[in-house]
């Protein structure tokens, strides 16, 4: 089959690889009908996530048709049309039973790698996202093996198009959980979203769905800001305005009640702090560039929430912790517990509350994907979200 393969930092390619097979009785094989490139895949392209290996198949946003199930699979049947959460979860451990699916105890075969980096514990596995997260082959391919097939995949029974439900695999639940984590008081709270990429777009719209009185989106890319503006958000271009001053003014001097950092570890930003971060990341002295996080902490209102859907990978310094403490901020963060959001968000799509396909700007084949990784990374050609058809 054809698959998108990580060939080293800044190199992804299309290669012919063996078709996946069932490895365990609880596995299923999915014929992928649609898959997408995620903003977090760009961290892999850039080589800032440790433990990638040349030849790894990428991709964690995908859906398709079940073509084979293992003998212990009960719920899923051949022929089912499913969306597959990007996290791999066992469904029986204590975190899974509490709905903390991304914290699954049992799905990461390489738990020791994550334990070494992350305080002696390991989260669950992810599709196509480094060996530290399990080394599972991803879904930017014609077929994919799905472990714990009775736990992750969710059947789509309505006639919604792939493009309307594909993003239930990651970016819609991720944006939604970021907004939900804010504990928005409807009609009262102001929410600021740093980063108008796909997750930022869904976070902003989710904040609106959850009743935010006002949503402000910060970025520097005009077409991304325009997309947020079209949804009724106020926008700030941080290259044209002093973002902290603008946020203060827009909120009567209070600051936003909640701030969502949908940027993560590769913030662009500007000023001396951003330059130092970039140099340190290049020299592998630090994993993360944290301009967005600094702004989030500095701008947030007293008693507010800083919610981090953006990915962080390692150690950071020059964090304005004093400001966070003085204001009594609450931090919420982590990989999305995708499984628990799929059904309720699908209902919202079916009810017409939101059509997630608004975010798509590029549609292509797998063969075009390597170019589109770069287009997406460089934010060229108005690129916000790329959807791939593996059979085109």
């Amino acid at each position, binding site marked *: 089959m054809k698959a998108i*393969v990580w060939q080293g930092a800044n190199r992804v390619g299309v290669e012919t690889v063996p078709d996946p097979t069932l*490895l365990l009785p609880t596995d299923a094989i999915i014929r992928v009908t649609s898959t997408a490139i995620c903003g977090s895949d760009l961290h892999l392209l850039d080589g800032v996530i440790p433990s990638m290996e040349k*030849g790894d198949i990428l991709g964690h946003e995908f859906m398709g048709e079940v073509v084979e199930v293992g003998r212990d699979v009960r719920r899923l049947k051949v022929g089912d049309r499913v969306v597959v959460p990007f996290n791999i979860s*066992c469904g029986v451990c204590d975190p899974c039973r509490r709905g903390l699916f991304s914290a699954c105890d*049992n799905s990461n075969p390489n738990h020791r790698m994550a334990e070494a980096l992350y305080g002696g514990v390991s989260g669950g596995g992810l599709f196509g996202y480094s060996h530290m997260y399990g080394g599972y*082959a991803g879904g930017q391919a014609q077929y994919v093996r799905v472990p714990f097939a009775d736990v992750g995949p969710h059947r789509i029974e309505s006639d919604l198009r792939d493009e309307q439900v594909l993003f239930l695999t990651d970016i819609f639940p991720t944006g939604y959980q970021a907004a939900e984590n804010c504990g928005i008081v409807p009609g009262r709270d102001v929410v600021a979203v740093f980063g108008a990429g796909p997750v930022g777009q869904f976070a902003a719209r989710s904040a609106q769905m959850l009743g935010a009185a006002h949503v402000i989106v910060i970025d520097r890319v005009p077409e991304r800001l325009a997309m947020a503006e079209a949804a009724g958000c106020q926008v700030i271009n941080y290259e044209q305005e002093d973002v902290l001053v603008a946020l203060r003014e827009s909120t009567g001097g209070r600051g936003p009640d909640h701030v969502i950092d949908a940027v993560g570890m590769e913030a662009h930003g500007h000023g001396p702090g951003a330059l130092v971060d970039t140099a340190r990341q290049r020299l592998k002295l630090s994993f993360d560039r944290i301009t967005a996080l600094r702004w989030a902490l500095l701008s947030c209102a007293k008693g507010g929430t800083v919610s981090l859907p953006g990915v962080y990978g390692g150690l950071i310094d020059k964090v304005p912790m004093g400001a966070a403490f003085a204001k009594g901020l609450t931090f919420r963060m982590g990989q999305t517990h995708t499984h628990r959001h799929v059904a309720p968000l699908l209902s919202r799509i079916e009810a017409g509350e939101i059509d997630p396909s608004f975010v798509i700007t590029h549609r292509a084949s797998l063969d075009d994907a390597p170019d589109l990784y770069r287009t997406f990374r460089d934010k060229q050609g108005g690129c916000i979200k790329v959807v791939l058809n593996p059979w085109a």
Partner: protein
Amino acid sequence: MSEDRSTPPPEGSTPPTEPQTDAAGQLPALERSVMGSVGVALMGAGLRSARPIRKLVLGSVGAGLAAMAATGRNPLATALKIRQTPQGEVLVSDAVTIGKPADDLYRVWRDLASLPRLMTHLKAVEVLDGRRSRWTVEAPTGTVSWEAEITADEPGRRIAWAALPGAAVENHGEVLFRPAPGDRGTEVVVRLAYHPPGGSAGAIAARLFGEEPAQQLRDDLMRFKREQELGFAPTTEGQSSARAGGQA
């Protein structure tokens, strides 16, 4: 043995060793005296050497060894968080919470002959009688085997064992089973103490080559948890990739 948890262990459970005075890489006396003599000798050679580079290297290595001997600390062992007693025993402990009743987990452990299924570095455990058994492990140097006896057996709560005198690797340990708060099942705590072949240097080498008991214990406990909770181990072995042979 250091007890990092705020929950006290159940009554009747005693650590396998005397509470040790230092958990930060204290060197045993013999190792200290050898290290001190070598260090002083190197410093002397360095000072006598005519070549400045040799003077510098020998001098500083020698001074480092002498300092280690004087302070009684092996900085590498400290950096690698290898815990030792003043008697030179290496201490290893780890814990895992498993969503099963303590009695079930105790029964699996008490069936000594089946332990090699859970612990991949254990080659065989042969039960000799009610208390004694023969253990065989794979070591970097080949197989090592010794006789051990059960020193405490509290059904559903604790098993302790010790190698009989004359064992190739002197060791003793215990496993505790205690209810986890809430409905989370059972906390399984394992504590081991052993004399590493080659002293603290041997323990450091084993740690660096990934063969060290602390790492093996972690893997074993996670394998045990997954066997109990899932009935199998998650894997990517044999999956598709673009590497040679097309497999991960």
